């Protein structure tokens, strides 16, 4: 499948602080990919590098085959960008902003924009600066949908939105992206919204990419296990992450499968009768993989 975004050997530091080293990933055409990570793991840094607002220490990113930071106007026309906090030209009203953007995008389709604005019951002459955060998010969403771009990059779209607006945003975007076969690259730190939206997840931890795979495959294999025991197993010998023992209750996460876990525990002399395997939501799996701290 053709890749819309490719990042190779990306390394970036802020001063002495390593954000990541030798990060490699690709976003195939037509997929909705979520970049998940805790605060400070480099989600916005990645978006900034992709859009050419930041030069990495080493490595490079390409969009539609062109080097980030040197995108031609014709490639920029294919990329719709939502900045963190739904930043838009708040000194304009919605009629002005629609007129402004329409001139830049040959495939501009004003129907979805005005459809969303009508839902909000906003007067065409209302200035964006006088709108609530939720209303501003819908203006920003309306603009990126109307651009009819091939790739949509959304940086922390859920920031500052109440649950209703988050749901509206996700449902509208998901329906649009699937119906129009668009590629979406999205970051958020509210994982529960992402589960309804994304096909693939990329999970960043401090300094590295932990995984990139389809969400359903990840949730099919990555499980939480619970058991009771007075002693803790030797975790070094087991394919588990973030094991925790509180009194006699043991909890850990693994993608190795129940059979392997049982075999490992029995080899160490543990009873496995009460071992429970639990399926997880994306948010629980994210916490399981990256840890609570």
């Amino acid at each position, binding site marked *: 499948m053709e890749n819309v975004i490719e990042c190779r050997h990306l390394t970036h530091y*802020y001063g002495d602080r390593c954000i990541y080293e030798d990060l490699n990933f690709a976003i195939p055409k037509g997929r909705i990919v979520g970049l998940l990570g805790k605060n400070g793991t480099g989600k916005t840094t990645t978006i*900034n590098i992709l*859009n*050419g*607002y*930041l*030069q990495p220490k080493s490595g490079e990113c390409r969009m539609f085959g062109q080097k980030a*930071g040197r995108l031609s*106007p*014709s490639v*920029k*026309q294919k*990329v719709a*960008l939502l*900045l963190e*906090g739904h*930043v*838009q*030209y*708040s*000194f*304009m009203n919605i009629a*002005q902003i629609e*007129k*402004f*953007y329409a*001139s*830049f*995008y040959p495939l501009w389709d004003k129907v979805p924009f005005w459809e969303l604005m009508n839902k909000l019951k906003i007067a065409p002459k209302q200035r964006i600066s006088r709108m609530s955060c939720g209303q501003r998010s819908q203006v920003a969403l309306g603009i990126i949908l109307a651009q009819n771009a091939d790739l949509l990059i959304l940086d922390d779209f859920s920031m500052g939105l109440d649950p209703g607006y988050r749901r509206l945003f996700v449902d509208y975007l998901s329906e649009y992206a699937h119906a129009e076969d668009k590629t979406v690259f999205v970051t958020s730190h509210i994982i529960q919204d992402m589960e309804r939206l994304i096909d693939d997840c990329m999970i960043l931890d401090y300094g590295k990419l932990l995984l990139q795979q389809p969400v359903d495959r990840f949730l099919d294999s990555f499980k939480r296990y619970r058991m009771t025991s007075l002693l803790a197993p030797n975790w070094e010998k087991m394919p588990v992450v973030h094991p925790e023992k509180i009194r006699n209750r043991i909890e850990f996460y693994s993608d190795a499968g129940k059979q392997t876990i049982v075999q490992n525990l029995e080899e160490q002399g543990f009873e496995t009768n009460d071992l429970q395997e639990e399926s997880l939501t994306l948010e629980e799996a994210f916490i399981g993989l990256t840890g609570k701290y």
Partner: protein
Amino acid sequence: MIKALLYKEWIKTRWFLLAIAIAGLLLHIYMFMRVGRSIRLVGAEHIWDVIITRNQFLFSELKYLPLLSGALLGLSQFIPEITNRRIKLTFHLPLREKTITTWMVGFGFILLTGLFLVQFAGLFTGMHLLFAPEIVNNGALTVLPWYVAGLWAYLACVFVAVEPTWRMRIPNLLISTGLIRILFLSDFPAAYAPMPVLMFAGTILFVLFLWLSVFRLKVGRQ
């Protein structure tokens, strides 16, 4: 696309431009009313004496108007761009960053120059009605550095505002203030007449400075 870009600049600056234009008009009306009243009250001979022998310039209220006009226009145009890093949206528009910057700065610079030319023409014409050509020419040379200071102030605002870090904004502000101060060192009429090269070179320097800020913003200096 360029038309749309200029439309955005117009929306940001139109009320500020109107305010600058009205302030300039009112100040010119006030200055000519005051000079006319002085001529009527103390006589043209006395005013002539003040100008010729005491080297006084009668329109010195104008001194800081271009400076404030340039700074206000620059801030009104670029503060909205740097607030919430909105300039990222602007640089994401499907045009080359150089093209975007040139048109944005060109918009402000040309409008400001146009406004200054209208004010300058008003002053020049008004003075012609009251004074001899030598005095008018001397007056024009006196106000020229003030108008150049207005253009420098505009470019300095872009230079400081677009710079991505506060650590560099402060030295940028100090350098700009120092350079603009050069144009206000002497109140002597036509003191800067022999220095058009300095004024031109300073303008070029500010243009280079603002490109440095654009470059630093583009590569994500933090």
